[in-house]
């Protein structure tokens, strides 16, 4: 009935110019059309992003001097990386290892066990050799990270370097932001009166430029002249400064980061929740399911893919955290809140460009491995479940 109606309608009106173009283009081979959709984006990304990437990789292996006429780049091989991993920057980058606490031992054993089990399962499950090799590499990488994390955080006399600090920021931050973002997005789709107000308000923190947010939070967290001063005094922390304690400063960064980026999760998940297909929900309601069942069995699976995407996006962005630690404490106290990007920035600011590129390259490798593992592990499961 619908088909007839629309065909009849269309026969009645002469096709407009635009629709004639579209029909012609649409009539071209599927290949051409499909290419037309994606090539503009690919070309733009290729021209702006890819070349700088190669240059950045190259700079990591070079010493760069600013001389008259431009840049004087000469190859020094692994020297920059040597400084980071075993030389003068090692304690800033990797941290200082201590002697493991019992909890540390537990975590290491559990972690390694988990990795081994995953690998064995894959092998038994009939994954091809190439796949196994990649998984093994990922496991090795993961084990090294775990080793470093445990030896700096769960050890006596250990002090985390920028790598571990960044991981701490990312993991806690993204987890908090996702939980809050999802919860708030859900609450705001319940149809409660006044929800428009909340929707707009919850978007606000993200609208402020990150540097501005950093300054705002440094104002707020000032125990002396900040607005929370009476609160601090009441709790007995009047003479304490979070900026003096390593973990206090880190928590301050995480708080600021969560404040600012929860809206990112919120807005994406909100759109996802609102964009759900109403049919299954209506059907379930008719069947007598209550709100909670609908949430658990229909909504969650429906937004699972986009939830994974937004987590991945936020993960990638979170690794680049720089403004908050830089403005709050310049990476201090000491180097307690210095993230990898901040370390690269400090090196770059005094024009130690090669070193800065090396640090950035390490960050890139770290994030790429994590992203690849994430995408492979979780999205495969999402597709399988869907």
């Amino acid at each position, binding site marked *: 009935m619908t088909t007839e109606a629309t065909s009849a309608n269309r026969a009645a009106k002469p096709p407009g110019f635009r629709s004639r173009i579209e029909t012609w283009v649409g009539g071209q081979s599927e290949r051409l059309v499909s290419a037309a959709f994606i090539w503009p984006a690919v070309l733009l990304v290729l021209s702006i992003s890819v070349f700088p990437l190669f240059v950045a990789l190259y700079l990591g292996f070079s*010493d760069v001097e*600013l*001389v*008259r*006429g*431009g*840049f004087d780049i000469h190859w020094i091989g692994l020297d920059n990386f040597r400084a980071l991993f075993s030389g*003068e920057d090692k304690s*800033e980058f990797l941290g200082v290892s201590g002697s493991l606490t019992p909890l540390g031992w537990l975590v290491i054993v559990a972690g390694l066990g988990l990795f081994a089990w995953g690998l064995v399962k894959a092998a038994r499950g009939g994954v091809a050799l190439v796949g196994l090799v990649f998984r093994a590499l990922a496991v090795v990488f993961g084990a090294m990270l775990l080793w470093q994390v445990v030896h700096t955080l769960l050890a006596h006399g250990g*002090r985390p370097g920028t790598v571990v600090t960044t991981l701490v920021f990312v993991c806690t931050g993204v987890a908090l932001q996702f939980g809050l973002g999802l919860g708030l997005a859900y609450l705001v789709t319940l149809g409660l009166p006044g929800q428009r107000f909340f929707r707009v308000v919850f978007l606000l923190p993200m609208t402020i430029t990150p540097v501005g947010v950093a300054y705002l939070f440094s104002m707020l967290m*000032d*125990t*002396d002249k900040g607005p929370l001063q009476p609160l601090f005094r009441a709790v007995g922390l009047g*003479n*304490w*400064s*979070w*900026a*003096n304690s*390593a973990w206090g400063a880190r928590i301050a960064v995480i708080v600021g980061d969560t404040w600012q980026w929860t809206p990112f999760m919120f807005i994406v998940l909100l759109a996802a929740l609102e964009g759900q297909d109403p049919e299954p929900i209506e059907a379930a309601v008719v069947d007598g399911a209550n709100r909670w069942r609908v949430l658990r069995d229909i909504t969650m699976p429906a937004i699972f893919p986009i939830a994974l995407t937004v987590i991945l996006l936020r993960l990638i962005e979170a690794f680049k955290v720089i403004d908050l630690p*830089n403005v*709050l*404490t*310049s*990476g*201090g*106290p*000491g*180097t*307690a809140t210095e993230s990898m990007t901040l370390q690269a920035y*400090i*090196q*770059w*600011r*005094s*024009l*130690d460009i090669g070193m800065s590129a090396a640090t950035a390259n390490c960050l890139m490798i770290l994030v790429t491995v994590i992203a690849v593992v994430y995408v492979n592990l979780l999205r495969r499961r999402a597709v399988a479940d869907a």
Partner: protein
Amino acid sequence: MKRFGLLAFLAVAVLVAAATSTGGNSRSAAKPFAGVTVNVVTFTGPQIAEPLQRRAPAFNKLTGAKVNIITVPFSDLYEKILTDAATGTNSYDAYVFDPQWLGDFVPAGYLEDLTSRVKADKKIQWNDIGPFFRNFSATFQGRTYTVPMDGDFQMVYYRKDILARDHVKPPATWDDYLAIAKRYNGKDLNGDGKGDYGSCIAKKRAAQSYWMIYSIAGAFLQSLGTKQGAFFDVKTMQPLIQNAGFARALDIYNETTKYAPPDERNLDVGATRGLFTSGRCMFSLDWGDIGTLAIDPKTSTVQNKVGSIILPGSRQVVNRKTGKLVACTKVTCPYAINGVNHAPFAAYGGWSGAVNAASDTKTKDAAYAFLSYMSQPAQANVDVTLGKTGFNPYRASQFKNLRLWIKAGMSKAAAEDYLGAIRRSLQSPNMILDLRVPKAAQYEGVVLDTALAQFLAGEISRDHAMKQITDGWNSITDKVGRDKQRAAYAGSLNIQK
């Protein structure tokens, strides 16, 4: 008849036109730089940028040159203008920047040699500028490259009213400083019923703390005059860090934290100035800004309660051969005052203007004229009395003329005190010139700063910090070339080889 009238009218019109056109010509002849645009870059103010922006229109009226003040965030100024100059982009014709960077700009040829222009310029009254700034901040290897507009060096400020009330003498040595700070820490210094602090020094990382340490260490490290140098050994380029003097300075620096606000390690000068001018500190260690900020009722509750002294010194100095501390004698400390060796530290040097060598001649002339205009006493002597300009005194005429300061709001006593401290610092033959070699930003801003921050946070021990700084500095020196750096360092100290 009518035709005659018409002719007469035409004749008059032509005469009038001729008269006005020649009048116009003579007017434009008085504007030497009409049609020239000068792009000046500095960091976003209001300090430094404000007086430049304020006076640009007047300069335009005088000379016809249009001056654009372009500003960039302070922490990114260095790499932005160095990249701009090096890559040949040349967006800027003049730079108002940190003379410490001369080591990176002059050898590469980015700056115009101003020696002949300065010699020919009577208005700038070059000899009125303090000899220290003339010789060390404006000159590099014998030639003049910058026009000083500001005099930067550190002093100690104290609550004159309280010390006078208790008959305590202002500190002459750092031990005195510590003793007094300890005594007043926790007492109420501004009458609001809450305990205040003995000492407020900006210790935040990537802020200004890496200058503060040399204000303390300098007196232990340098005693034979500016040319002795305080950062490196002039002959070997070995860092003067791993010795008993610097160790003692680190200990003092650390101890001041005990008598300070709890988050002092995260305070930069904006915060410490605010604290001092609202009466909450006995001491502060800072550039000249507190003097002018203290008289502004918008920012200060301690008008006329502030005293200034040259940096406290030390009765012991480092024997560079042994690395140990030895007592001050006429031989070891020829410039000692009452047995105490003072080494006022010209931290940062003082914002100065330089001209881009790659601009065309007319623009360069106009740029130099603008910089000279800003530095001329008629303008400069007013600007240095205003806290918001960020310009601190650097000319002899600025110290002698008390009336300027009294007009700005200082009491006669406060002005004498403030200017006296500056004058004594400026005239000291043992003044320390800040590090002015290539990669100074890396030596101080990265290696020294990071080690200091880690030391204050307890991440590393004092001796480890000294080793870390020494190794870091040596690695930079070796990368650039030891001989090259040695020549640059010696050159900056104006040692003619």
